[in-house]
């Protein structure tokens, strides 16, 4: 697999009124085309900051990252669905296209197709409040996919859902990503979710974070996130990552 993205010694410091806080010490890793890579680390370790930097919303204090593609399109999915309540879910899905001035008939058809593929066609004219949490998250994904991203950044996209919806939606999202063959960087603090969805896992240290370890995930009979949890290697990965994270309760 070719690399789509190389991240080289990214460093991030935040400057407050009184002090300078080091959020990311140094992070380097590569992202291969078509893979799902998950950044795992404790809360507040700097995982989301890294995604913001890659998405171009924030700047790194030092270091660089390079896409091996000209003008890559980046899709960013956030912790909550961030759907606009005054728009229908179809209008919500077109938001990115409108901002990027790509709201063409052809793209609208593509969005409609996405709704159809993900069984949300009959809800297209509903408003977000009329949908369940899981459905809203799927709409958020359609909104991200609408701009046809080269890379997908998922910032704890299931954290706002209850456990059952979380499993179901992560399963759906996994299938969608694999079907569309989109390179994905996901941030999660849920080890099980990370193992069940990823091709590789980057374990980050506590703040200021650095890469502690990178795991290639090999699961026997790799299928979908729910089934993957039953793989015999699952518990072993879980224990190793748990140890790496050095979590004290």
């Amino acid at each position: 697999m070719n690399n789509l993205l190389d991240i080289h010694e990214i460093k991030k410091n935040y400057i407050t009124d009184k002090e300078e806080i080091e959020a990311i010490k140094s992070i380097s890793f590569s992202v291969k085309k078509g893979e799902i890579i998950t950044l795992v680390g404790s809360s507040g370790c700097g995982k989301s900051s890294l995604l913001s930097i890659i998405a171009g919303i924030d700047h790194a204090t030092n270091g660089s990252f390079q896409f091996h593609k000209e003008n890559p399109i980046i899709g960013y999915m956030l912790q909550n669905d961030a759907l606009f309540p005054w728009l229908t879910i179809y209008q919500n899905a077109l938001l990115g296209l409108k901002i990027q001035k790509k709201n063409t008939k052809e793209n609208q058809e593509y969005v409609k197709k996405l709704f159809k593929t993900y069984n949300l066609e009959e809800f297209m004219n509903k408003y977000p409040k009329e949908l369940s949490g899981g459905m809203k998250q799927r709409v958020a994904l359609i909104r991200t996919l609408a701009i046809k991203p080269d890379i997908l950044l998922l910032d704890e996209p299931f954290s706002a859902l209850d456990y059952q919806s979380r499993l179901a939606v992560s399963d759906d999202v996994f299938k969608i990503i694999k079907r569309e063959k989109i390179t994905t960087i996901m941030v999660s603090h849920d080890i099980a979710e990370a193992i069940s969805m990823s091709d590789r896992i980057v374990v980050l240290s506590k703040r200021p974070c650095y890469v502690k370890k990178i795991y290639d995930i090999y699961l026997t009979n790799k299928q979908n996130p729910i089934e993957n949890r039953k793989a015999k290697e699952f518990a072993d990965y879980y224990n190793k990552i748990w140890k790496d994270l050095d979590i004290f309760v």
Partner: protein
Amino acid sequence: MSEEAKKIIKKKKQKKYFIIFAQLFIVITFFIGWEILAKAKVINPFIFSSPSRILKTIYELILSGELWIHIYTTLYETILAFIIGISCGFIIAILLYEFPTLAKIIDPFLTMINSLPKVALGPIIIIWAGANTNSIIVMALLINLIVSILNIYNGFLGVDETKIKLLKSFGANKIQILKHLIIPESKRTIISSLKINISMTLIGVIMGEFLVSKKGIGYLIIYGTQVFNLTLVMAGILVLIVLSFLIYEVVSFIEKKLSTDR
């Protein structure tokens, strides 16, 4: 529907009617009591007037056509100051939101002006803006503008950061963020500030009319005081109560129509 549910709904309705009845009872008792006390000379009708005298004065003002002129003047000034206040408040709030340093610089000045009793500026306003409608509009603006700015600006600040981040991830510029998110998301705050603003504007207009005017309900009240015609003063106050209630209801209606937010 179950019997239990029917009982609860019936109880709720009864409570609602009881509240309306109690409100009407208070108003009617107040006016009847006032009338009786004035007729029996328990209270001095020259100072306290009486409902019948007030109604007679209002009737005479209607017959002479004078009342409509005063209502029209106050309404015109209120609507004008209200529109200017909301429009300027909206534009200034956008500027403050887009330029946070500017917001920080003028924050203490806004607080200072907001806490200042505006009537103290009355004499200066008359000299600067002239002894005419301009002074009344300026007085009303002094009262409603700061409230508008602060309400709308705080609405902007309350917008969900995640949504801003989302739009930025799509590459949205400041104007797109404003158009697609900040303004629609703050719609509710802006609409609810209309109610506060209309009340503030009316206060400003009446204060302005007290200081400088030849027409308007404020003028009617101050003129009544000057000639010691307290019945006229109270007639003015009664008209003002009805007028402010009607204006408030109209704004509430507009608010309901506009806030069909999903």
